[in-house]
């Protein structure tokens, strides 16, 4: 019953995004260029080598393509929330018969679904034609990949939401948001597989949620994470998703109580 409400919200968002504007073409072009730059770059890297840290050129290219695609699904809900808080719209939303966080999540899923169909898929086609994307290493890894991707996107949305919730507490959450973007870009493996990082770096990233954002799903696909490591990695992802979900909800509830008690 309640689910239907959220589905409606998600689909309304899909319609809004369906407008084919100049910005759509501009961003498609820009991401395509990004992919081409990566292509030429890695080609040059592998000029005299067949593998780097156990990764072949085609594997690296596949990684680059998938990682770039996945990286597009980062922001959204958090910014919405921060905006609502900053401009006071949050008060109205708290009166509505749904949980604000769920609404934001549902809307974000709608946006991301539409992004997938109108941006990601065409870009993948382009990448497959001009750059070369490996097929998944096995049926199992393909299946695990799809689950892992969903978890990764969910986690990304939640982290973004967390930053948004923090704007209840600090006025200038923007600084944090901006810094977080750069840090996460590096630590999630969005620009380079984590296995290329120095060992101490890799150890740290085991304890941080960021690897689950990009590296885990893409590495499952390319085989960088081998069969034995697949399901444990997914479980870790699931754990992080759960943790952040609870954490965000708690922070939000506490913030709302604080606001209503002290009269935002």
């Amino acid at each position, binding site marked *: 019953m309640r689910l239907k409400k959220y589905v409606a919200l998600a689909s309304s968002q899909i319609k809004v995004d369906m407008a084919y504007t100049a910005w759509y073409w501009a961003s498609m072009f820009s991401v395509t260029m990004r992919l081409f730059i990566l292509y030429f770059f890695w080609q040059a890297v592998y000029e005299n080598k067949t593998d780097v840290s156990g990764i072949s050129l085609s594997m690296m290219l596949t990684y680059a393509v998938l990682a770039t695609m996945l990286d597009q699904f980062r922001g959204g809900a958090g910014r919405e929330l921060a905006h609502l808080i900053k401009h006071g719209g949050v008060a109205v939303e708290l009166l509505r018969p749904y949980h604000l966080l769920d609404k934001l999540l549902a809307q974000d899923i709608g946006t991301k679904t539409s992004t997938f169909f109108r941006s990601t898929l065409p870009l993948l086609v382009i990448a497959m034609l001009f750059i070369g994307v490996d097929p998944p290493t096995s049926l199992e890894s393909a299946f695990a990949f799809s689950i892992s991707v969903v978890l990764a996107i969910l986690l990304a949305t939640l982290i973004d939401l967390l930053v948004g919730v923090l704007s209840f507490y600090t006025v200038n959450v923007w600084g944090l948001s901006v810094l977080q973007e750069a840090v996460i*870009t590096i630590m999630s493996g969005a*620009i*380079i597989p984590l296995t290329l990082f120095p060992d101490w770096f890799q150890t740290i990233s085991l304890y941080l949620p960021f690897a689950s954002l990009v590296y885990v799903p893409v590495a499952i696909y390319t085989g960088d994470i081998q069969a034995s490591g697949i399901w444990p990695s997914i479980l870790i992802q699931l754990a992080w998703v759960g943790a952040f979900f609870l954490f965000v909800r708690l922070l939000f509830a506490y913030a709302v109580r604080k606001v209503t008690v002290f009269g935002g």
Partner: protein
Amino acid sequence: MKRYAKLYWLYAKNHFKVMMEYRMDFLIGVLSVFGQQFAALFFLSIVFRHIESLNGWGFYEILFIYGIAFLGRAVHHIFFDNLWTIGWQYIRTGNLDRILMRPVNPLFQIVAERVQQDGFGQLLIGGSVLWLASNELGMTWSMMDILVLLVMVLASGMIYIAVNLFFATFSFWMIDSLPVVFAVFSLSDFARYPMTIYSKVIMFVLTYIIPFGFTAFYPAMYFFEGRGFTMFALATPLVAMLSLVIAYRFWLYGLRAFASTGS
């Protein structure tokens, strides 16, 4: 000329005062720029832990090219950032009319109305990177070399400015051509790396069509011995000036067309 200098100084003074008020935003701007550039450099350094050279180019050579790109970008960002806003801030709002009613060159006014101080952070990073790279490469700097470097950096900035202005001019017909400018600027990322890694087509485009090649790679070649491309390196200031002339001409054309069709 002197009057315009005095005017610009007045505008800049006011920007500085405002910046002091918006200290937080300034800091955030610096941080975000820092973050992006750090990510790019980090990426490079990680890759070079695993390889010796990229298409024959060493780590510090590539860093040097990066440095020039950063510096040129900084020049554009600090003084000419308002070019990005021509569509939505001046044409869509009708603010352009107010500018046209003043006895001052309209492009000057638009440019003078914004100074991005966080670009100085970019200058600093670019300069440091350049200095580090040149040290590691064992480069020596004569007075002449430093002068040439200055000219090259300015030329690099001028090309960014020219490309920005050229495509922003489309706003006279599109109301806001920002998506177009944004798309074209995504080509500038190619310029960060040695152009020899690209296909002939891409090199052609970046040399003769949208001359981003001259924002980093070609000028850098002046300072490398035995790498070739000397002719291109020396051509950099000329390409920069030509680009500016073409862009400005187009801007004037757009302005005239705008006055005919109205908004």
